[in-house]
């Protein structure tokens, strides 16, 4: 199915949801889906992740109505501010007599964008009873602290740091890149009181080490992993385009693997993200040790009722397997400290392919 423009999807989803409204989630007698994430009480582990769908109060209310345990707002991007600014700049004519007016206009754009974002947070805080997690994405160190404090003042329950420092600066060493993450976290944590989570990409040379080390910093939760638009090539027009806007069914495997491996080695909550499209995958993630799961693409494709579906089926599965609470089975299949996954995988690989000539 070809998704023409992502922007058109949200409306379609709401319409779909409203037309096919399922009955609200009811907690079956004994089953308790409550969990704690980042120190906050959630009524279930399913979170609507940060996306274009978590950008307006109407959507947020619909998400709450569908039963989500929490919601992560669309990211506010420092980059976006500069892009908008540069775009305005590019419209200057040959007589650049507006240069003085526009020279520092990015500060104005930043003020306006922040104003809108903070208003959304305040309104969400007023209208919703589930936790509202703000998401910020910056690239310069001092902006993080500034945004974080404003977001806290506006009433967010927690902040998800959408940190991706693309390692395109080839002259910077691994160490430089990685220490930036820790610097930024310290800087922010020193300025705010609400809990911090950090969403990372898998592009680290020592991913296990980084996950472990981050979990021991000031953050309370790690979100694995961020999903990016992948570049692709349009050979007819001979240009670079983006593809894979939404995740594919099999995309969850990378997350599954790492959550499973790290669940017993970390000092923070783990939130699974990317490729969680059905209730079965939710169960898988919880089994390998995730504290919560975040869904995005599934909502674009199936509407907010997907959340209600997942919760109902999770409950049914728990009842069928005799579990009263999430804690009864979470992490049951996570790798314990003594297992070496790499070795395990190698053995499997050799078993599968070793006999073939």
């Amino acid at each position, binding site marked *: 199915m070809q998704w023409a423009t992502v922007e058109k999807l949200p409306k379609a989803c709401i319409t779909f949801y409203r037309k096919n409204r399922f009955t609200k989630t009811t907690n079956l007698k004994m089953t308790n889906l409550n969990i704690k994430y980042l120190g906050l009480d959630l009524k279930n582990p399913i979170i609507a992740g940060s996306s274009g769908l978590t950008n307006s109060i109407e959507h947020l209310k619909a998400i709450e109505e569908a039963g989500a345990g929490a919601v992560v707002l669309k990211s506010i991007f420092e980059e976006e501010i500069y892009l908008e600014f540069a775009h305005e*700049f590019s419209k200057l004519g040959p007589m650049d007599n*507006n240069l*003085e007016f526009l020279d520092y206009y990015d500060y104005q754009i*930043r003020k306006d964008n922040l104003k809108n974002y903070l208003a959304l947070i305040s309104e969400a805080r007023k209208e919703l009873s589930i936790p509202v997690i703000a998401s910020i994405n910056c690239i310069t160190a001092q902006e993080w602290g500034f945004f974080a404090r404003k977001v806290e003042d506006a009433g967010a329950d927690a902040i998800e740091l959408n940190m991706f420092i693309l390692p395109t600066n080839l002259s910077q060493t691994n160490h430089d890149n990685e220490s930036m993450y820790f610097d930024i976290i310290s800087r922010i944590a020193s300025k705010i009181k609400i809990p911090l989570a950090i969403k990372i990409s898998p592009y680290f040379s020592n991913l296990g080490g980084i996950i472990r080390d981050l979990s021991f910093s000031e953050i309370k939760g790690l979100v694995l992993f961020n999903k990016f638009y992948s570049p692709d090539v349009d050979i007819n027009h001979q240009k670079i385009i983006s593809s894979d806007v939404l995740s594919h069914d099999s995309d969850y495997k990378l997350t599954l693997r790492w959550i499973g491996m790290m669940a017993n080695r970390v000092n923070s909550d783990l939130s699974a993200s990317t490729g969680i499209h059905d209730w079965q995958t939710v169960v898988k993630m919880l089994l390998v040790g995730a504290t919560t799961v975040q869904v995005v693409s599934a909502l674009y494709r199936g509407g907010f009722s997907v959340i209600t579906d997942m919760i109902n089926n999770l409950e049914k599965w728990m009842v069928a397997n005799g579990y009263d609470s999430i804690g009864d089975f979470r992490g049951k299949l996570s790798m314990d400290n003594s297992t070496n996954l790499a070795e395990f995988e190698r053995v499997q690989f050799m078993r599968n392919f070793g006999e073939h000539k």
Partner: protein
Amino acid sequence: MWRAELRAKTKNKDRMLIQRVKMPELAPGIRVKHQDREVNIGLNPDQAQTEATRCMDCSNPTCIEGCPVSINIPKFIKNIENGEILKAAATLKETNALPAVCGRVCPQEKQCELRCFYVEKLDKPAVAIGHLERFAADFERNSGVSNIPETEKPNGIKIAAVGSGPASLSFAGDMVKYGYDVTVFEALHEIGGVLKYGIPEFRLPNSVVDFELENLRQMGVKFITNFIVGRTSSFDDLHNDGYKGFFIGSGAGLPRFMDIPGENFNAILSSNEYLTRVNLMGAATDKKDTPVLRGKNVAVIGGGNTAMDSVRTALRLGAERAIIIYRRSEAEMPARIEEVQHAKEEGVEFMTLCNPLEYFADGKGRVRRMRLNRMGLGEPDSSGRRRPLPIEGSEFELDVDLVIVAVGVSPNPLVPACLPDLKVTKWGTIVVDEEKMQSSISEMFAGGDIVRGGATVILAMGDGRKAAESMHHFLQKK
């Protein structure tokens, strides 16, 4: 024609041998002690005539194309060469209501002089059109002879101009020539807008502005001060009083701040506040009641003409260190090169590729220190300018006791707030048809900074002229 004779008098190749005149300037050591002494002293008659001789009176004068108000440049310059300075001034007045102002503050190097034959074809310095314009206007002012341009018979139609800055003044000047009954309404107690409150005495003396204003009065333009259109009287009230056409020239008088921690401490001012206190309210002298804060270590944030005006004012008010802090490099500063040059001569320090992060105050709440980042220039973005990026770990601190924030202004929101039907952009500027300067309300026209954001005096004047012509057609058709 006398012009043909004048052209024949000197051969072009001789004209080309003359070097461009250098504007005499007051020595930096002297001028930093005086808020009200002009830096550029002005040409004397000999210098003016010699410079005027350089102009070759091209058959296809491209210089006029570079002028936003289409002054007949060759005509006025040739009048100077011919010794008819008053006629030169009259030529200027045909299209420019404020020639003494423009001669001083226009960025001629980007406008008329950029299109001069010398620059376009000979790769030599342009004829000093700006200096000559100023010479002619000053000569007329000092001569005591007042040349009031002709006006049509009054037609009794009442027109209102909101704001008394360059846009409205040039609009009013043209409308009154067409025969209209023009009243200019000004919110402040003095007329002239940015010419009075924004541009310092050492660049544009208020007395020069007053003289040009008197000219407009003589032509029949009425001025009412202490009148905020939309508050003192509403637009409806003015309609009822019989005004048929409106020109909105309320300017970009809304200061912008950077919103960084500590920015509301005492002794951190917007450039608007600082310049208004000194230029409009005369705060530098004890004679005037309005105070102004003085500092020993003054930092001005920004790189435009306003920043230059602010930092040079601070120097004249006794600063030991007057520093420009700009996040890009000097080459990218929007300020006129002449202003940067003068600032450097006067001892202004330039800390480029630096950006403020936070301010710190003493126990009484007055700023004493600031923290800055050094910036590096990254890849050009879609605008073509290289993007300033903070260099991580480069933070340092600076002792300051007065900070002026000169990072730009935004359009004054007062008038748009009173007119819900008026279409405005997301930046608060009024949307107008670019040729007609007409807004979404048919009898309302607009020009100047309220349409362009913060731009220049001459562009505002060009807008005023365009609006006058087009409102005239609009009203005549009705």
